[in-house]
């Protein structure tokens, strides 16, 4: 612990944490539980900063948004099932497809992965919480309020209606006079705050909060995925927040960023949006690929083949992902030379994906799998991933994309990517970690039913969309004539989408039944290798009674893998129980570095989130005084948040309370 000395200006603050064990029921364990548990009732509910509670909230909220986006999709599929239907007006259809996209892309696909990562990271990394627990709570609350903000416009018939990528000038004031686009613009800026603070938290957590010994080459792939996605978000979100902010200024203040008559550039919007949009596409799949890379090996009974290759390919995908945004704009009339570069880059980006695909197949091949529900979802995911990847290669070929762009082929491709690579791993992941979340197993019979119904419904629903695209069906048309040759494919798609929805319904029923009557789960029901399975199911508030020492990538398989090297120590470790404490370690080698004083529960994140959302609502409604009032309330919440407390002071003995500065 020499590092503690080096990092502290005041030698008297040096403290070496006690090493020991704290079995369930011991005095130390009871004290830890008291320290970490939130208050009962609504107070604890509003003030908790426990990453597990926040993670579950993310999962549940995002899943509810998935269901809402799904219902929107089903309504659209009814409209499109046959030609010349009049179930929806064109305006209703516009709002539905826009909100379907906004919901699925922004309110479901990343938040659900944040839910997994929030819940699992500290458990996988052997930590007691995320680096900034209150920021974590804020991130959730703002996400929730931004979602409500966007959806509040729906019942009023004023929901965003220009497509999720919201091209100007159609989204400008001249062609879109209602509040619809202002809702979208402000909602996105608000949501951007949530994503940004969440990403910062993940990055710092990874580099600071791992258990001693968990060097960077021992972290699970999910952690790599979320880390990569978070770094990408930190760079990508400013682009989209800026774009929406400029659009809002154009619409409300009268600036001319996108306004052609006054020299604005519509193409600027496309660039800003896709500079964000493409990295985002990878941000919403890489953590999900991580879920598979971590959970698939459990059912294949062997470690993932090519850990380093997969981790590196994750990062390579993201790096390349920043250099391909033009492939969304191949039809925008850009110079051929530029198109060539971006087309070639878009092909190259498939190579890291190939690494992952062959790593998974090799893992299954060499491992000889056991057939549980999560395995089915992960194996199904691999095949959908391949289809989505191959159709992606087609759209990367510039001349072909001149045809495919903005047709149903792209719709098919993006659904194979987003459902195949996000929804299937997510549902599989819920089956896999459900026992950890709730202490009960999910029903296997219903689980297998839900997989097969979802898998068949998905392919029946979305594969024909490729054909609709090849037959020339454009995106975002609210109806079509009977002589276009699209009748059969659309009918099949509509039928398939309802079958898929039935599969989701079976999954939901399974959750409800299993919550009540599922078999009780042991700490490690799947015999999995990673740290989250070393703690009870569900985990105690403090996660780890003692901070473990980690000696390998697979702490719970060490005895059987016999890789040489030391053995992880899960029973003996730092006790750290003078208040809420965690250990900070060095970024690469995870050597113990510093004792971190973790913050208590607080209402401040909730109120800061609430007041921010209200301030944005004030901006939307042009209530100037109200907005100012809410901004003041935000400042007050921040002051309450930051208010210094003695409990956070690093101390050796009571007598030195007032002497040292807090650190950590």
């Amino acid at each position: 612990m020499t590092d503690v000395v080096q990092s502290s200006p005041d030698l008297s603050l040096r403290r070496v944490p006690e090493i020991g064990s704290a079995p369930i029921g011991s005095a130390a364990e009871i004290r830890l539980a008291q320290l970490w548990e939130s208050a009962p009732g609504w107070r604890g509910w509003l003030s908790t900063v426990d990453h597990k509670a926040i993670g579950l909230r993310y999962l549940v909220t995002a899943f509810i948004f998935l269901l809402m986006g799904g219902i929107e999709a089903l309504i659209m599929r009814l409209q499109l099932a046959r030609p010349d239907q009049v179930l929806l007006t064109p305006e209703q259809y516009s709002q539905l497809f826009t909100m379907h996209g906004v919901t699925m892309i922004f309110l479901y696909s990343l938040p659900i992965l944040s839910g997994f990562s929030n819940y699992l990271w500290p458990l996988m990394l052997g930590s007691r919480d995320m680096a900034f627990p209150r920021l974590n709570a804020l991130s959730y609350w703002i996400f929730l309020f931004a979602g409500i903000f966007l959806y509040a416009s729906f019942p009023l018939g004023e929901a965003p209606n220009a497509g999720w990528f919201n091209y100007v000038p159609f989204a400008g004031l001249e062609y879109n006079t209602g509040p619809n686009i202002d809702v979208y613009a402000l909602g996105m800026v608000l949501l951007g705050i949530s994503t940004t603070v969440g990403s910062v938290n993940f990055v710092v957590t990874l580099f600071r909060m791992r258990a001693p010994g968990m060097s960077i080459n021992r972290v699970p792939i999910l952690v790599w995925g979320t880390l990569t996605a978070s770094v990408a978000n930190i760079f990508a979100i400013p682009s989209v927040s800026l774009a929406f902010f400029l659009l809002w200024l154009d619409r409300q203040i009268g600036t001319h960023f996108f306004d052609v008559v006054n020299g604005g550039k519509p193409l600027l919007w496309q660039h800003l949006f896709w500079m964000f949009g493409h990295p985002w596409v990878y941000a919403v799949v890489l953590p999900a690929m991580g879920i598979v890379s971590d959970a698939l090996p459990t059912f294949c009974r062997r470690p993932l083949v090519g850990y380093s290759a997969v981790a590196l390919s994750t990062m390579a995908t993201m790096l390349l992902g920043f250099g391909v945004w033009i492939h969304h704009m191949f039809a925008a009339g850009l110079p051929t030379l530029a198109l060539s570069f971006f087309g070639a880059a878009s092909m190259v980006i498939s190579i890291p994906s190939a690494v992952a695909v062959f790593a998974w197949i090799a893992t299954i091949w060499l491992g000889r799998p056991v057939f549980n529900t999560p395995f089915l979802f992960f194996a199904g995911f691999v095949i959908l991933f391949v289809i989505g990847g191959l159709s992606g290669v087609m759209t990367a070929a510039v001349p072909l994309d001149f045809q495919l762009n903005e047709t149903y082929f792209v719709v098919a491709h993006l659904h194979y990517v987003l459902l195949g690579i996000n929804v299937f791993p997510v549902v599989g992941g819920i089956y896999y970690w459900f026992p950890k979340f709730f202490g009960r197993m999910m029903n296997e019979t219903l689980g297998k039913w839900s997989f097969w119904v979802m898998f068949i419904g998905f392919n029946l629903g979305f594969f024909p969309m490729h054909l609709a695209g090849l037959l020339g069906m454009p995106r975002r048309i609210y109806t079509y004539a009977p002589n276009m040759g699209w009748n059969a494919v659309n009918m099949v798609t509509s039928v398939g989408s309802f079958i898929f929805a039935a599969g989701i319904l079976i999954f939901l029923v399974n959750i409800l039944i299993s919550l009540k009557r599922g078999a009780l789960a042991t700490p490690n029901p799947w015999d999995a290798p990673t740290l989250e399975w070393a703690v009870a199911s569900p985990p105690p508030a403090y996660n780890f009674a003692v901070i473990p020492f980690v000696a390998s990538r697979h702490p719970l398989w060490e005895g059987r893998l016999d890789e040489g090297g030391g053995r992880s120590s899960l029973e003996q470790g730092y006790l750290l129980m003078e208040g809420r404490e965690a250990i900070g370690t060095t970024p690469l080698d995870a050597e113990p570095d510093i004792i971190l004083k973790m913050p208590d529960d607080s209402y401040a994140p909730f109120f800061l989130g609430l007041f921010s959302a209200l301030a944005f609502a004030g901006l939307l409604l042009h209530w100037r005084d109200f907005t100012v009032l809410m901004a003041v309330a935000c400042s007050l919440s921040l002051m309450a948040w930051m208010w210094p407390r003695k409990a956070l002071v690093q101390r050796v003995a009571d007598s030195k309370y007032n002497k040292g500065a807090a650190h950590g």
Partner: protein
Amino acid sequence: MNDYRSRFRHFAAVECAFFSMILAAAPVNAALAENGVAPLNYFLHSYGPAATPTMYLGWIFVALLAVIFVIIALLLTGAVFRKRSAEDPCTIGREDEGMPWIYIGTGVSACILFALAIYALVTLNVIAKPTRAPALTLTVTGYDWWWKIEYEDDDPTRRFVTANEIHIPVGVPVLVKLKSADVIHAFWVPMLAGKTQMIPGLNNQQWLQADAEGIYRGQCTQYCGVQHAHMGFEVVAQNPAEFQKWQDAQRKSAAMVSTIDINAGKKLFLDRCSGCHTIRGTEAVGAHAPDLTHLKSRRLIAAGLLTNTSEHLVKWITHAQDIKPGARMPSMMLTATEISALSAFLSTLN
């Protein structure tokens, strides 16, 4: 001029075989059986040098990627069904095995991708520009939700404007300059060329060429508002003589015959319609809507939505908002007498 359906008939066998080979999907065959052919089906039909190389590219990509898919699917199926010996469900495999899978798999994928990328770039180069100078230049401007078409000529008196129906001579490259009057649209005649966005403030262009006479359907493919679905047009490729005849006819102003009925209709048009529509040779010079000088010469009205019969025309005038809700064309409140007068007048616009 042949109707496009008859021209496509001999492709039916090829396309059925092709689709069942690569996609093995029943819906397509059913769709084709139902309607003959999809008028926007660029994947199996192309009629010019701006589109045909892309069509071949599409076939080769689909065929190759389908083979890759089958190989990977077989590997995965083989992997999934390798049985685990029942006596020891808990054995754990060693971590350091299996790397050849990644080396070989990724290596082969990278080579294929490299080849595909080169093929795509070569094709892009081939279709980027016509091999000879365009024989005809026209400007297409996207409006919510119709197309204005201007034929250029060095002699300003020989320029003319029409809407929603482009005529081109067969066998020569045509340069299409693309503009937008309001929001972003995209110009797409899939059987002749790929699509290009029409962005306000920018001058985009593309070229196309039809090697066979016929009618080719076009469609806006960039979401541009509530009636995006009904923003179609047609390209009519004609032999040079017919094209010349059409062009000469279009250059003329409307020939005004004068009978009582027609005069009443004309007056009505000037009162109610001329704010938006132009009829050359009359005082109607509105610029917000299609030029109707030679309305009766067009096959379709309402941007490709309805065939140009007098019943459809009347229905469109009186019920535009039911047929195309949100369109800029209002549903006109007209009495029966007014309707017949207006019809009589419009029917003279040959």
